[in-house]
C-alpha cells in the first residue's frame, strides 16, 4: 500500500479524535491512544542534562581525510581543544553517540561501535547483503537500527525489523519485526522510536522491544523523530512535541511549532529518516534549520523564540513568529560542514577543521578551535555530543554588527548564494542609518564578483532610499570620465541618472549630459539620462541631446538599438520649443536618418500641426 493510500485510509479513520486501529497492525492494536502515549513517555525516564558520552565531556566526532591519507574518525575534545583519539575508519554514515561507544556504518555495511574513550573497536554487526539498513541511532546504553528485510529501501517495502543492542557489549536485546515502510530510528532515554508508514511514530521499550504506543500524525507526515533533553519531537513541515495531546497530532495543537522563514530558506527541521541515503553526512547538513524547544507541560515553542538557518557558510537567527532577522554570521571563504544547536550555542566545524561556537542569542563568536593546526585536511562530516556547550554571553538578543555582517554577505566574492545575498539586501533595506547607505554604495566599486541581479537590486534599493546625503557621492562619481591612460571608467551612469532624478538634483544634469559627448559612454545610460533631464525639466540638456541626435542620426550602428536616439528625440520634444521642433522635422526628413528614428519622429510630430514653414534660425532659445 502506498504511503499516500495509507494516509487516505488513516484520514478516513480519523473522523473522531479518539484512538484508531493501527494500520497495518504492529503488535499494538490501538494507535493514537493518549493514555498509551502518556504511559510510554513516562516510562522513558529522565534524560541526560549534558553530553551523552560517559566521559561527560563535550565532544565532536569528526570524519576527516588528512591530506593524501585514508579516511579517519577523530574524537575532538571541545573543552580541551585537542584530539582525544583518531583512527582509520571507513565511515559511511553519521556517527551516533551512546554512553560507552560511538557507532557508525562502514563501507562494508557493518555497524561499528568504537569505545568513546579510546576509539578502539568494541563490537561490529554485519548486515545481510539482502537487507537494507534504513538507519541507526544511539543514546545512553542503547544502540538501535532498523533494517528493511524485503523490498529494499523502497516506499513499498513492508518487511522490516527494529533491532536494539546493548551499547557497551553489542549484545542484541531484541529484534522486532514490523510492517514497513519504516524509517530510521531514534533512541530517546529508554525508548526506541521509529517513524513508519509516513503517519505513524511507534514507541518501543528500549530494553524489551515491546511496542508501547503509536502516535498518529494526522495532518502531515512524520518523516523524522528527534530526541532532545527537552522532549521527544517528530514532524516534517513543522515539529510536534510528543505528548498525550499529540497522540493524534494536529497542527492546531499547542505542541506544534513551525517557524516563519525567509523565502530562500529550505524548511528542513531534520533530515528525512525514510531515506537511507540521508543517513550519511551530505549537503543537507549544510542547508537546514537548527532549533531547540522550550516546553511547558504539553506546550512547546522554539527556544528563545527563534530558529537558526544554516546555509553553507552563513547562519541566520530568525524570529520564529515573525521571520524577522535577529543576527547573522558569515563564515569567511569556506563552508560550515556540520552544525548543532547545543542549547546555548550554534556549534559548527568547517571543511578545513575549524570549530566555532556562536552565541545562540546574539550570534557572537564565543569559541574557536582547530582540529589540526597547519594540517591540510578535509572534513566530510561531524557529530557533536556537546549538550549545553558554549560560554554564556549575557544573553543580548541584538547583533551590533548586523549591518556589516549583512554587507559582507552581500558583497562576498563567493559567486554562489544569490538567494542569500538577496535576503541580506532585503534585510539591509529594512534598516536605516548611514552605515547601511555606506555599505550599499560599495555596489559602485564591485566588479563582476557579485551576480548581476544582486547588483541591480542593490541599485534599485539605493535609488528608492532617496538619501540626499549621498548626493555628493553621486556628483563625484559623475565627474569621472573614461580614460585609458588613467585606468578610469565611469560606472553605472544609468543608476546615477535615476538616483539624481529621485533626489530632484537638477545640479547633476550638466555632469550627466557631459557623458553624451564621450565616445565610450554606455549607451544604456542615455535613456535614464534623458529621463532625468525630462523629469527635472532641465533645458540645459537640450543642446547636448541635439548634438547627440544629429551626430548619430545617420549612424547605422544605431539601427539595431535606436533607443538612445529615440530618447534624445524625446528630450527635444518634451523640453524644446519651436527651434527644437524644426530641428526634429529636419531630422525626420533628412537623407540617411536611420529609419527607426525618422518613423518615431513622424509619429511623434503628427499630433501637432507641422509649422507652416521652418522656424527661423534666429528664433527660439
Amino acid at each position, binding site marked *: 500500500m502506498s504511503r499516500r493510500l495509507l494516509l487516505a485510509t488513516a484520514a478516513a479513520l480519523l473522523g473522531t479524535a479518539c484512538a484508531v486501529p493501527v494500520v497495518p497492525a504492529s503488535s499494538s492494536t490501538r494507535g493514537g491512544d493518549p493514555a498509551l502515549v502518556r504511559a510510554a513517555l513516562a516510562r522513558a525516564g529522565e534524560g541526560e542534562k549534558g553530553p551523552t558520552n560517559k566521559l561527560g565531556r563535550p565532544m565532536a566526532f569528526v570524519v576527516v581525510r588528512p591530506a593524501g591519507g585514508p579516511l579517519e574518525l577523530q574524537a575532538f575534545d571541545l573543552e580541551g581543544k585537542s584530539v582525544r583519539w583518531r583512527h582509520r575508519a571507513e565511515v559511511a554514515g553519521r556517527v551516533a553517540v551512546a554512553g560507552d561507544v560511538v557507532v557508525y556504518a562502514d563501507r562494508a555495511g557493518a555497524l561499528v561501535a568504537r569505545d568513546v574513550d579510546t576509539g578502539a573497536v568494541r563490537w561490529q554487526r554485519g548486515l545481510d547483503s539482502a537487507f537494507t539498513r534504513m538507519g541507526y541511532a544511539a543514546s545512553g546504553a542503547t544502540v538501535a537500527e532498523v533494517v528493511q528485510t524485503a523490498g529494499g529501501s523502497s516506499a513499498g517495502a513492508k518487511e522490516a525489523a527494529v533491532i536494539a543492542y546493548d551499547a557497551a557489549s553489542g549484545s542484541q536485546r531484541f529484534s522486532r519485526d514490523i510492517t514497513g515502510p519504516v524509517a530510521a530510528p531514534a533512541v530517546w532515554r529508554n525508548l526506541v522510536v521509529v517513524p513508519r508508514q509516513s503517519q505513524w511514530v511507534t514507541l518501543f521499550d528500549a530494553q524489551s522491544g515491546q511496542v508501547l504506543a503509536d502516535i498518529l500524525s494526522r495532518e502531515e507526515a512524520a518523516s523524522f523523530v528527534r530526541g532532545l533533553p527537552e522532549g521527544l519531537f517528530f514532524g516534517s513541515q513543522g515539529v510536534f512535541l510528543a505528548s498525550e495531546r499529540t497522540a493524534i497530532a494536529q497542527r492546531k495543537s499547542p505542541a506544534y511549532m513551525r517557524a516563519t522563514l525567509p523565502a530562500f530558506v529550505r524548511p528542513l527541521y531534520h533530515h528525512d529518516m525514510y531515506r537511507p541515503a540521508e543517513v550519511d553526512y551530505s549537503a543537507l547538513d549544510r542547508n537546514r534549520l537548527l532549533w531547540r524547544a522550550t516546553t511547558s507541560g504539553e506546550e512547546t515553542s522554539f527556544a528563545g523564540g527563534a530558529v537558526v538557518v544554516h546555509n553553507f557558510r552563513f547562519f541566520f537567527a530568525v524570529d520564529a513568529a515573525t521571520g524577522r532577522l535577529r543576527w547573522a554570521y558569515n563564515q569567511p571563504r569556506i563552508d560550515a560542514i556540520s552544525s548543532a544547536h547545543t542549547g546555548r550555542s550554534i556549534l559548527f566545524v568547517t571543511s578545513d577543521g575549524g570549530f566555532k561556537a556562536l552565541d545562540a542569542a546574539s550570534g557572537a563568536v564565543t569559541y574557536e578551535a582547530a582540529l589540526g593546526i597547519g594540517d591540510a585536511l578535509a572534513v566530510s562530516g561531524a557529530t557533536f555530543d556537546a549538550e549545553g556547550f558554549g560560554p554564556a554571553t549575557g544573553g543580548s538578543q541584538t547583533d551590533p554588527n548586523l549591518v556589516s555582517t549583512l554587507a559582507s554577505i552581500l558583497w562576498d566574492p563567493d559567486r554562489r548564494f544569490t538567494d542569500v545575498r538577496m535576503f541580506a539586501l532585503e534585510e539591509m533595506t529594512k534598516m536605516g542609518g548611514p552605515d547601511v547607505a555606506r555599505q550599499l554604495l560599495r555596489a559602485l566599486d564591485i566588479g563582476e564578483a557579485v551576480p548581476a541581479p544582486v547588483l541591480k537590486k542593490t541599485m534599485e534599493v539605493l535609488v528608492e532610499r532617496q538619501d540626499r546625503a549621498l548626493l555628493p557621492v553621486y556628483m563625484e562619481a559623475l565627474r569621472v570620465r573614461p580614460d585609458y591612460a588613467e585606468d578610469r571608467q565611469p560606472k553605472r551612469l544609468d543608476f546615477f541618472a535615476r538616483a539624481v532624478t529621485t533626489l530632484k538634483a537638477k545640479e547633476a544634469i550638466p555632469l550627466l549630459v557631459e557623458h553624451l559627448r564621450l565616445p565610450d559612454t554606455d549607451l544604456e545610460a542615455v535613456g535614464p539620462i534623458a529621463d532625468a533631464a525630462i523629469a527635472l525639466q532641465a533645458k540645459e540638456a537640450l543642446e547636448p541631446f541635439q548634438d547627440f541626435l544629429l*551626430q548619430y542620426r*545617420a549612424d547605422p550602428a544605431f539601427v539595431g538599438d535606436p533607443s538612445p536616439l529615440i530618447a534624445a528625440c524625446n528630450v527635444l520634444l518634451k523640453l524644446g520649443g519651436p527651434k527644437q521642433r524644426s530641428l526634429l522635422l529636419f531630422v525626420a526628413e533628412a537623407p540617411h536618418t536611420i529609419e527607426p528614428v525618422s518613423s518615431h519622429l513622424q509619429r511623434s510630430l503628427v499630433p501637432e500641426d507641422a509649422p507652416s514653414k521652418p522656424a527661423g534660425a534666429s528664433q527660439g532659445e
Partner: protein
Amino acid sequence: VCLVRHLAGWILVWALTVGDVAAAPSTGAAGKSKPSKPLPSAELADLRAKLLGEDVATAVTAAQRLGDSGAREAAEPLAELLAIGALPNLAVEALAGLEKLRDPKSLQVLTLYTGNRNVPVRKAAVKALAALGDPRVAGVLIERLGDSAAEVRTVAAETLADRKDSRAAPRLFKLVAKNDAGAAGPLGTLIKADNVPQLAELRGRVDDAVLATAMGEFLKRPEVADRLRVDVINTLARMPGAAATTALVEYLTTIPEKDNRASRAEAQKLVDSRGAQ
C-alpha cells in the same frame, strides 16, 4: 566642452535656411592655411548640393573635391555636413577634407567629432583638429591620449610631439607604462631628461621594443646632454633585439658628420658589435 555649445545654432542656420551660411564664431587663433584659389560660386553650390544629397558616392566625391580644392570657402559645406550628421564613411571624408583645409572656424564641429563613437570617424576628427593651429586644440588632444582606441591615441600623441607640447609627457609616460607602442616615440620627444631613469626602470614590465623606441627618440633631441645620451645608449645595449639596434642606427643618422660627441662613439661601437654578431 563649451566648444560645442553653439552647434545647434549652426545646424539651424545651415540645415534649415536656404540662404547664405551664417558666420560661425571666430576662434581668433587660426592655423596657417596655405593661400588658395577660390572655388567658383557655382561649383561651390553644386558641390554643397551633392554633399548634402541622397547619393552617398556622389557625396563622398564632393567631399574629396572640396578638400582637395584648398579653397577657404570649401570648409563651410563640409562643416555643415558634419553639423547635421552624416553616414560614418562620408563623415570620414568630410573630416579628411577639413584636415586639408585647416579652417579655424571648423574648430567646434571637429572638437565634437573627437568624441564620436565610431573609431575611424574619431581618428579622422583628431587628425583634422590637429591640423589647426589653435592653442585650444592641445587640451582636446591631451584628453584623447586617454582614448580607448590605440589608433586615436597614437594620432593624438604624435601631434602633441610635433607640437612639442611637454604637458602631454606625464600621460604619455602612463601609456608607455601600459606598453602602448604608439606613445613611445612621442614620449621620447617630450619626456624631461630628469624622468629618463624612470623610463629605464620600466624595463621588464614593458616590451623592449616600446622602450627602445622611446629612448631612440630621446637620443635624437639636440638639447639633451651627451652624458645622458651615453647612459641611454648603455641601457639600449642591455636590450637584445632589432628595436634597440634600429634606435641606435637612427640616432647615428641624425648626428652631423663632423660632430664627434661621445655618445656617437658609444652607439657606433654597439652597432658594430651587433653587426659582427
